[in-house]
């Protein structure tokens, strides 16, 4: 058996050798089938890796062959890729070939087969393909776990802008699976029952932590996802350059561009490669790298900077000569030396470059941020330079930079140093001006001066000296030292002329003096006045040149409004100047500015030449004047606004508009013009074009009409606000006349009333005394006048009440006053019959025999319940007198009158009684004297006290003295029998 095997092997070898020989000799192509084909899956790169051999080759034989590879997906018939791979093949050589799949390999099974063909030039005949190898399957799904849902490719790294295909494999065979890219649903293609693919085109960078893509089963907790790492595209380094500061070390710098670092990928790395020396170094920094210069005096360098990340490499190269890339280090120890008021020396040092190298240094001097001097100095190590023409007391900045002299490449960095020059005496006299005024009768001059500019002060001004010299008395000086920063002082002078010197002093010395002459005489204010126009640049002020010799002019003004304290400003001008522009940042529109132009004489004395007033910009008045209306008649009234000041307005007042709103339907007076107000109401307008006219008479009005008016000033810009009309109503035509009549009447009545009031006591005493005092009674005087000693007064207390017999005489007795007219009350009065014992008149024919004692002093209340109700009435008393008697006063008056009349008219001789008794009985002889009787004949005797009772005590208990009578008499009321 072994022998047989050896034989068989030998035979086959011989046959193969023979066939090889034949192929070489006969040049016939042989079918060389690929063998041992193996397929593996690389998930990282999504690659299928193939390896195979060709055993059929002869020993040491090399043939160029073509391998045709077919790749199918899901099933062998679904061929998705065919590629011919040409290579030179040796016997038993393991051949490799890789294929990158767009679709993640985990999502589908792949099948691969291949065939080969000899494609060697040594074989002229056209070859033919070998047989196909058997299909090899690559199925990465077998490596998956048991999760229900997988998404691929895992953690794929791609560049921005790439197209990526993702897929999912579902083991739950549900079709309600949705996939999302950063939360936004994406739609794909179902490749298989459980596999779907999604193509993401032109993916963009979102974050370093990767783009989240996930799929989930709707209404279920199953979730699968991947992170797609999208890297920014690696950029080519920009501005790549190298330079040296000391010819020992090269420093290369570049702009790296975007960082491509991700969680999945570190930031791009940079490698520096030098081609002449063949050396390279991995840079530690992303934008610069150091390179040690070789000691073998290599002058030329060719650097390549290579940037790379996992996905890409970019490089950039430069070629240069080392000495042409020298960038010196920053100089140091820059210091000022010997600093004076106008000079200073600057010293500095530099780092040496190689041996005996020279550096060109540039020294710059800056003041207030601007370069004012520039100098170049060649040095080796130490530099020095003298700066001159400096300003005293000024801060300067000196800065130095240096460059390599042999070949200029770059300036070094700058080194700066500040220094201050020393002070010097002020170089210019202060600008001085004055203001003259009278204070308490003394001429007072206020001196103002402007601080010296920094250029002229040459240091810090410490104080100002003011020397006042009396020109009239040259020997008298007065020196004032005013510490800075004061800028004014006040001097009280007399009527003499004074020359004032003002100097500014710093630590070094005084400035030149500024001289001004003032006189105690008041200024001449009667000068030409004018207006000046304001522009954007300020006020353009011009004046007439002074006739005499003028050494200059001064324009003076106040910066603020008139109602604010004046901040005096002035401007000095040359002798040949007759105009200037006054500008100030403090000027405001709508503010009147007054300018005074002075001429300076050769004696340094200022004389007022002109006055100007102007507005930077005129405005319309903001307020209307306070108008007073007077002389109102039925046809006119007068308006007056004399308190309105035209000086303090926001523009030159050119006049006034008087607006009058007529009553409805009324036309405007011819002097007025019809105008329409902003609120569309019609109004009559009268224009006063004289700003000094501040009264106006509105005429031709209708009586008893309502008018509205407003007075508003106007400037060149416009008029004041039309917002508050004043209403006025014209009176009727006769009211005026009536007033002239009624008022005096009222006055007269008042006078009479006052007199009456003042004389009321007198009248009362005379006309109606409250309580007729018997001692004061006229009856008494009458008695006295009669000188009848038998007549006296009987006091009530002295009387003992007695019975009174009353004889009633009903027939024919009728009281006379009841004869013609009867009122219902009269009938009551007739009940108590009165005994008229004392006839009131001689010819009295009334009821004589009735005796009636009437208490005439009783109050109103008493009158109300006076049961008697009848009283002595003169027979001649007309009936109409009875009516008012119902009132107490009238009653009292009537009673008093009757009483007095009764007393007064009793003839002394005829009186048969020598006392006035409170009780009386009618005499028999008097029976006939009762002409009439009351309707109800009643025996009546009446007793009433003659005691005054205050009104308020009418119902009060009577006094002890009077109690008897009152109790006895009044308490019983009437004693009628």
């Amino acid at each position, binding site marked *: 058996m072994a022998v047989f095997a050896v034989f068989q092997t030998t035979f086959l070898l011989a046959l193969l050798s023979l066939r090889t020989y034949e192929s070489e000799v006969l040049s016939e192509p042989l079918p060389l089938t690929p063998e041992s084909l193996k397929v593996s899956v690389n998930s990282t790169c999504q690659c299928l890796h193939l390896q195979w051999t060709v055993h059929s080759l002869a020993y040491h034989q090399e043939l160029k062959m073509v391998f045709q590879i077919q790749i199918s997906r899901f099933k062998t018939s679904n061929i998705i890729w065919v590629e011919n791979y040409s290579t030179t093949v040796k016997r038993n050589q393991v051949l490799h070939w890789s294929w990158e799949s767009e679709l993640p390999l985990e999502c589908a099974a792949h099948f691969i087969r291949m065939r080969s063909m000899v494609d060697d030039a040594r074989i002229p005949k056209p070859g033919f393909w070998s047989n196909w190898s058997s299909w090899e399957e690559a199925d990465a799904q077998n490596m998956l776990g048991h999760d229900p849902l997988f998404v691929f490719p895992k953690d794929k790294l791609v560049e921005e802008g790439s197209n990526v295909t993702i897929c999912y494999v579902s083991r739950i065979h549900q079709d309600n699976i949705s996939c999302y890219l950063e*939360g936004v649903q994406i739609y794909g293609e179902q490749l298989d029952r459980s596999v779907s693919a999604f193509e993401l085109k032109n993916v963009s960078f979102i974050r370093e932590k990767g783009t989240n893509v996930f799929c989930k089963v709707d209404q279920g907790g199953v979730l699968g996802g991947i992170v797609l790492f999208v890297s920014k595209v690696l950029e080519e380094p920009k501005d790549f350059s190298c330079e040296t500061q000391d010819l020992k070390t090269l420093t290369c710098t570049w702009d790296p561009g975007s960082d491509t670092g991700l969680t999945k990928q570190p930031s791009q790395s940079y490698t520096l490669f030098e081609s002449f020396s063949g050396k390279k170094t991995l840079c530690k920094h992303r934008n610069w790298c150091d390179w040690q210069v070789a000691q073998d005096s290599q002058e030329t360098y060719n650097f390549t900077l290579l940037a790379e990340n996992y996905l890409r490499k970019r490089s950039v190269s430069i070629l240069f000569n080392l000495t042409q890339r020298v960038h010196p280090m920053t100089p140091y120890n820059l210091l000022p030396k010997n600093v004076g008021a106008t000079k200073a020396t600057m010293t500095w040092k530099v780092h040496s470059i190689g041996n005996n190298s020279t550096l060109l240094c540039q020294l710059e001097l800056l003041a207030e941020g601007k370069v004012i001097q520039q100098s170049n100095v060649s040095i080796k190590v130490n530099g020095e330079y003298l700066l001159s023409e400096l300003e005293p007391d000024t801060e300067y900045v000196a800065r130095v930079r240096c460059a390599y002299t042999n070949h200029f490449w770059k300036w070094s960095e700058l080194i700066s140093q500040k220094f201050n020059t020393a002070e010097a005496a002020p170089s210019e006299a202060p600008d001085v001006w004055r203001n003259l005024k009278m204070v308490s009768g003394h001429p007072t001059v206020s001196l103002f001066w402007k601080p010296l500019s920094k250029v002229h002060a040459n240091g810090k001004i410490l104080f100002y000296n003011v020397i006042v010299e009396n020109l009239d008395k040259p020997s008298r000086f007065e020196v004032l030292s005013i510490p800075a920063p004061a800028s004014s002082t006040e001097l009280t002078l007399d009527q003499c002329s004074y020359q004032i010197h003002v100097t500014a002093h710093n630590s070094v010395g005084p400035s030149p003096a500024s001289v001004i002459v003032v006189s105690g005489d008041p200024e001449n204010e009667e000068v030409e006045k004018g207006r000046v126009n304001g522009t954007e640049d300020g006020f353009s002020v011009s004046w007439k040149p002074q006739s005499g010799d003028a050494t200059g002019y001064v324009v003076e003004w106040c910066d603020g409004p008139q109602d604010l304290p004046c901040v005096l400003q002035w401007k000095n001008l040359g002798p040949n100047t007759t105009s200037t522009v006054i500008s100030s940042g403090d000027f405001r529109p709508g503010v009147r500015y007054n300018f005074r132009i002075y001429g300076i004489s050769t004696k340094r004395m200022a004389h007022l030449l002109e006055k100007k007033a102007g507005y930077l910009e005129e405005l319309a008045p903001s307020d209307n004047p306070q108008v007073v209306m007077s002389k109102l008649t039925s046809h006119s009234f007068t308006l007056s606004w004399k308190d309105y000041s035209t000086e303090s307005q926001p523009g030159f007042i050119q006049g006034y508009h008087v607006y009058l709103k007529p009553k409805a339907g009324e036309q405007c007076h011819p002097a007025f013009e019809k105008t329409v107000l902003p609120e569309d109401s019609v109004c009559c307008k009268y224009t006063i074009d004289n700003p000094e006219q501040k009264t106006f008479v509105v005429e031709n009005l209708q009586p008893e009409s309502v008018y509205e008016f407003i007075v508003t000033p106007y400037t060149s810009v416009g008029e004041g606000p039309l917002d508050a009309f004043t209403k006025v109503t014209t009176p009727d035509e006769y009211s005026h006349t009536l007033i002239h009549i009624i008022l005096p009447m009222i006055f007269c009545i008042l006078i009479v009333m006052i007199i009456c009031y003042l004389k009321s006591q007198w009248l009362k005493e005379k006309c109606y005394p409250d309580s007729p005092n018997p001692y004061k009674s006229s009856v008494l005087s009458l008695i006295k006048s009669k000188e009848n000693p038998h007549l006296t007064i009987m006091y009530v207390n002295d009387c003992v009440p007695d019975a009174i017999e009353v004889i009633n005489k009903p027939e024919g007795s009728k009281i006379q006053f009841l004869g013609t007219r009867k009122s219902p009350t009269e009938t009551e009065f007739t009940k108590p019959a009165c005994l008229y014992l004392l006839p009131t008149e001689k010819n009295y024919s009334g009821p004589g025999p009735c005796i009636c004692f009437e208490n005439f002093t009783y109050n109103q209340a008493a009158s109300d319940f006076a049961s008697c109700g009848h009283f002595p009435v003169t027979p001649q008393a007309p009936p109409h007198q009875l009516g008012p008697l119902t009132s107490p006063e009238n009653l009292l008056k009537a009673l008093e009158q009757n009483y007095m009349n009764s007393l007064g008219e009793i003839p002394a001789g005829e009186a048969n009684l020598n006392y006035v008794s409170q009780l009386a009985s009618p005499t028999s002889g008097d029976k006939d004297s009762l002409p009439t009787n009351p309707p109800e004949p009643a025996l009546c005797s009446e007793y009433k006290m003659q005691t005054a009772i205050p009104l308020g005590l009418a119902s009060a208990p009577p006094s002890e003295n009077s109690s008897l009578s009152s109790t006895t008499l009044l308490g019983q009321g009437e004693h009628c029998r």
Partner: protein
Amino acid sequence: RQVTCPLSAPGVILGLLFLSMTATSKCLGKYHELLLQLRRQADLMQDTSTLLDPYIHIQGLDTPGLKEHCRECSGAFPSEDALRGLSRQGFLQTLNATLGLVLHRLTALYQDLPEAQQLVGLNIRGFRSNIHCMSQLLRSSSEAETPEPTQPGPGPTPPPTPPSDAFQHKLKSCRFLHGYHRFMHSVGQVLQEWGESRSRSRSRSRRHSPCRAPGDTALARPCRGGARKMWPFRRDRRLMPRGQLPR
């Protein structure tokens, strides 16, 4: 599942480490101040704006469909009930051990949250220091009366399972942080009860037998796939002798 006893070697080792780590620090001797400090720290550490929120934002997980998957896996951290069931010493040791694992896990998150991770790491270390002090305080008061049983360790620190892919890693870390904050909230609640139950628990003491599953690696486990592990703390309590430190 096998259950290890409190005297398991890993527990002892961790307990010793815990003591040695903080032995050098100076402790507050006042129980209430220490408790207040612990509660404040727990309040601070339960704040999701310190870790979870920035993590979700940086990782792009704050999108619909993903955020709801950022939930704590049950059993990853001891539940509040489990913590409440522990004795005080047991609670402190469990807390210390859990925070040790959190620190370990946070180290792995350094690249994702470099700044927050450092800050939270400092907080955790400070908190553990206070845990040590509280443990000492409790132990010193109970030594004279009743020897404290050996406290269990939290078990061996499992090597973190390498994430299968970045997506899973994101979700796991997110769930872990969610669980961490929830755990600290529970710790705060329990500490709150310590203060509240001081007076009424003077006469009570707890017996604990905190056995747990060996090698509990719940912290590192995903929510799904594989067996889920709980923190099996026994709820039986033992009575503490009178005169112990106020709780």
